[in-house]
């Protein structure tokens, strides 16, 4: 794997280097090819071949490029890799085009264009269209050329490739120049030069500058044109771009000729001819020859002018006459192909339109409803779902949700077997056409939704199920509000009960001291009371008034717990909490020799209201101490535990315990007391219970007379 990635990286480097270091590109591609052959990876061999072929093509070594491309095609055909084949064919097209076999170039280009279109490869479409434009231009088909260049630009923009985009600007500018639209030509070539500078594509830059030279030449700006051509020439030479070099010599020749510098013109045209000859570039060869013929003719050098005229004519015949005939044949063929292509395109569009129309009503209905319309092809086990499926549950259409499994997977595990079984039974029953179920369904974000689902089973003539169409309805909101309502009703009922209970207790307990006060005040009115009696009665009235006050403050405390929680939740460390409580009752602990053993191994931290927890543990601990056995020292064990989805605490002691059979129901009641021997108001456990419940937990008790008490507090995790 590593090796493959390395080879791919080398090829990428080679491709990038082609812009300013073609030799390095060849070197790297060679290396990649050798290594690919070594590991016998056919895809990589093919790719390396294509890269190498491209680089040799750019260098002008067409024979070698052709051989490599042909081998690449064989490799890719073995692999049935259409894109690889297209890449190789593009190389070959380039070779044909550069060696003046325009018709063959055209055929190959059309070939790979259709493949690239199929694969939506915009980058390569841009490259091919640019080359096509060049060929159209060569044939003088300027309209097709402009169209090809513009398509190329369009595709280049799609993949935001500035280089490709600017590549097409160059020749486009040239065409406008030919059409004498100098302004537009100027505008476009400037764009191209700037883009090439931006991308650092030197080879391309040289062509752009050359193009600008042509525009300047047309504008009559001799100096500027000469400078442009010289600059282009320097870069072309540096880059080994012989076609560009020859083209520039040719245009420079024309420039000098037009401006009367005949010697300079002859000089550059000679160089152009040499380069053309050396690298077999016919087009510049005959263009240069033609210019030389004109120059010598102007100088009245008949011999030389005739010589170049002859060369020109012969070349023209080879390039144009013989080839053009064949090209025209091919051209007709291509036009015919194009026409057929267009016709089939129209047909396809027509049928698409029909399907679209027939689907329109269905789509509209789908859009109008909040339900998810689904269509399950039972035979092929594929589900189509309307857009709402994505909108409501958040599943992307690309996600793997075209099979029934995707539905089953998202069912709540507790509902799954029931639902699937029910569905299966309905499908199997030949007389059943309707299925209906309510279940919980996972949304894409993992939240649960409540769903009402109905489906109609479509059967063939044998009553076998073939298809099912239905509607899924997200009833989570209804469910939630139903639950909310239920909860609110229960809350209100509970609150009412609490209030009733509270009112009862209040009437009972508040009235007790009040009754005493009234009673003794009445007694005080009797004039026969002696002094002792009077003072005793006043003491009693005063005590009763105090106890009335303390009851009122108890009630106030309780009401505070029951009202809204203002305190913010924070992290409670239970070891610390118990230590704080121990410190606050240190005297009692020492006096009564109390041992408190804590074990917070399972849970030692919790996010909650510290003051509540403090009060809960404080009350339970002091309770345990208060109800200790007279004969042994109190031992209190506090443990935390964690079960499936609950967190809890156990507080147990070795105290006197309580007879739960007798008092079980009342243990947490307000002003309930169970021991005469111990001072108590019957408010501690009531407060504790209220606090635990306010925190959303529950408290229970296990106890046996004379063997201790255990309180269990539990919270949902």
């Amino acid at each position, binding site marked *: 794997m590593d090796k493959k990635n390395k080879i791919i990286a080398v090829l990428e480097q080679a491709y990038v280097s082609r812009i300013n270091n073609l030799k390095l590109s060849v070197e790297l591609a060679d290396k990649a090819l050798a290594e690919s052959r070594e590991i016998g990876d056919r895809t990589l061999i093919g790719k390396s071949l294509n890269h190498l072929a491209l680089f040799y093509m750019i260098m002008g070594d067409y024979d070698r490029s052709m051989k490599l491309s042909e081998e690449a095609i064989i490799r890719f055909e073995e692999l049935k890799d259409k894109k690889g084949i297209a890449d190789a064919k593009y190389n070959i097209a380039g070779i044909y085009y550069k060696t003046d076999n325009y018709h063959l170039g055209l055929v190959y280009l059309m070939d790979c264009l259709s493949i690239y279109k199929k694969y939506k490869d915009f980058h390569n479409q841009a490259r091919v269209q640019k080359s096509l434009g060049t060929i159209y231009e060569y044939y003088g088909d300027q309209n097709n050329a402009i169209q090809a260049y513009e398509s190329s630009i369009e595709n280049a923009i799609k993949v935001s490739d500035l280089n490709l985009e600017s590549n097409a600007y160059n020749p486009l500018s040239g065409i406008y120049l030919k059409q004498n639209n100098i302004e537009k030509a100027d505008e476009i070539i400037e764009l191209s030069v700037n883009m090439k500078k931006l991308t650092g594509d030197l080879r391309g830059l040289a062509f752009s500058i050359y193009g600008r030279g042509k525009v300047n030449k047309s504008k009559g700006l001799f100096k500027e044109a000469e400078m442009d051509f010289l600059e282009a020439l320097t870069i072309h030479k540096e880059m080994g771009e012989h076609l560009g070099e020859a083209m520039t010599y040719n245009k420079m020749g024309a420039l000098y000729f037009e401006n009367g510098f005949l010697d300079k013109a002859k000089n550059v045209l000679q160089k152009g001819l040499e380069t053309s000859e050396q690298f077999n570039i016919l087009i510049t060869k005959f263009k240069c020859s033609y210019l030389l013929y004109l120059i010598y003719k102007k100088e009245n050098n008949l011999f030389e002018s005739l010589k170049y005229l002859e060369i020109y004519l012969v070349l023209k015949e080879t390039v144009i006459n013989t080839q053009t005939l064949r090209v025209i044949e091919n051209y007709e063929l291509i036009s015919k192909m194009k026409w057929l292509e267009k016709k089939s395109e129209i047909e396809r569009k027509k049928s698409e339109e029909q399907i679209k129309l027939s689907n329109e009503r269905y789509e509209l209905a789908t859009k109008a409803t909040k339900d998810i319309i689904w269509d399950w092809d039972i035979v092929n086990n594929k589900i189509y779902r309307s857009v709402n499926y994505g909108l409501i549950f958040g599943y992307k259409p690309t996600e793997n949700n075209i099979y029934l499994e995707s539905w089953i997977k998202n069912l709540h595990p507790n509902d799954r077997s029931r639902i699937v079984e029910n569905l299966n039974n309905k499908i199997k029953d030949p007389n059943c056409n309707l299925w209906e179920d309510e279940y919980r369904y996972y949304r894409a974000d993992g939240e649960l939704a409540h769903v009402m689902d109905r489906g109609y089973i479509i059967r063939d003539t044998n009553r076998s199920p073939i298809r099912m169409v239905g509607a899924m309805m997200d009833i989570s909101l209804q469910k939630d509000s139903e639950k909310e309502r239920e909860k609110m009703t229960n809350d209100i009922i509970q609150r009412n009960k609490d209030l009733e209970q509270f009112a009862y207790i209040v009437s009972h307990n508040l*009235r007790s001291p009040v009754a005493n006060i009234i009673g003794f005040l009445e007694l005080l009115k009797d004039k026969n009371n002696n002094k002792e009696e009077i003072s005793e009665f006043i003491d009693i009235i005063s005590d009763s008034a105090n106890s009335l006050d303390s009851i009122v403050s108890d009630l106030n405390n309780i009401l505070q717990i029951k009202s809204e929680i203002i305190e913010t939740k924070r992290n409670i460390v239970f070891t610390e909490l118990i230590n704080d409580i121990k410190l606050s009752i240190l005297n009692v602990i020492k006096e009564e020799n109390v041992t408190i053993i804590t074990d917070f191994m399972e849970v030692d931290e919790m996010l909650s209201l510290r003051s509540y927890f403090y009060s809960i543990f404080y009350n339970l601990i002091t309770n345990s101490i208060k109800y200790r056995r007279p004969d042994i020292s109190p031992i209190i064990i506090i443990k935390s535990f964690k079960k499936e989805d609950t967190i809890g605490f156990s507080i147990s002691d070795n105290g006197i315990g309580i007879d739960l059979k007798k008092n079980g129901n009342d243990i947490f009641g307000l002003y309930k007391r169970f021991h*005469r021997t111990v001072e108590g108001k*019957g408010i501690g456990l009531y407060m504790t219970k209220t606090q635990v419940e306010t925190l959303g937990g529950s408290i229970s008790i296990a106890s046996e007379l004379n063997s201790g008490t255990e309180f269990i507090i539990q919270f949902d995790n």
Partner: protein
Amino acid sequence: MENSYQAYMKLPERFILIDDDPFNNKLCKNILNKIYKNIEVIGFTEPEKGIDYILNEYSENPVYTVLFLDINMPTLNGWQVVEKISHMSDNICMNIVIFILSSSIHLVDKTKASENPFISGYIEKPLNIKRLESIFI
């Protein structure tokens, strides 16, 4: 409404008070002694002890007695005390007339008392002379 007792009953030979609140017992004793001379008043702050007393004293020598009984007490509540007495021998039951003497003004308690055949009346605390005069001749 609250006159569920039988109007004008004979004054008993003895009053028993069962209430965990000593102040109430004191108040009752004081009033009873003040208006009914030579009548015995015995108070208990622990209902168990009151029951024991009744069992011990009344099995052999029952005395016509009125029991003023509180409802809300820690170890045994008033209803439980009534229940216990109701299971005692006829000898005892016939001789003890039970009145609930409670600080509760709640209808639930009054109704509960009126529905209990062993309870003769319901008196709201504090006990006062007027109330006593409306019950006893």
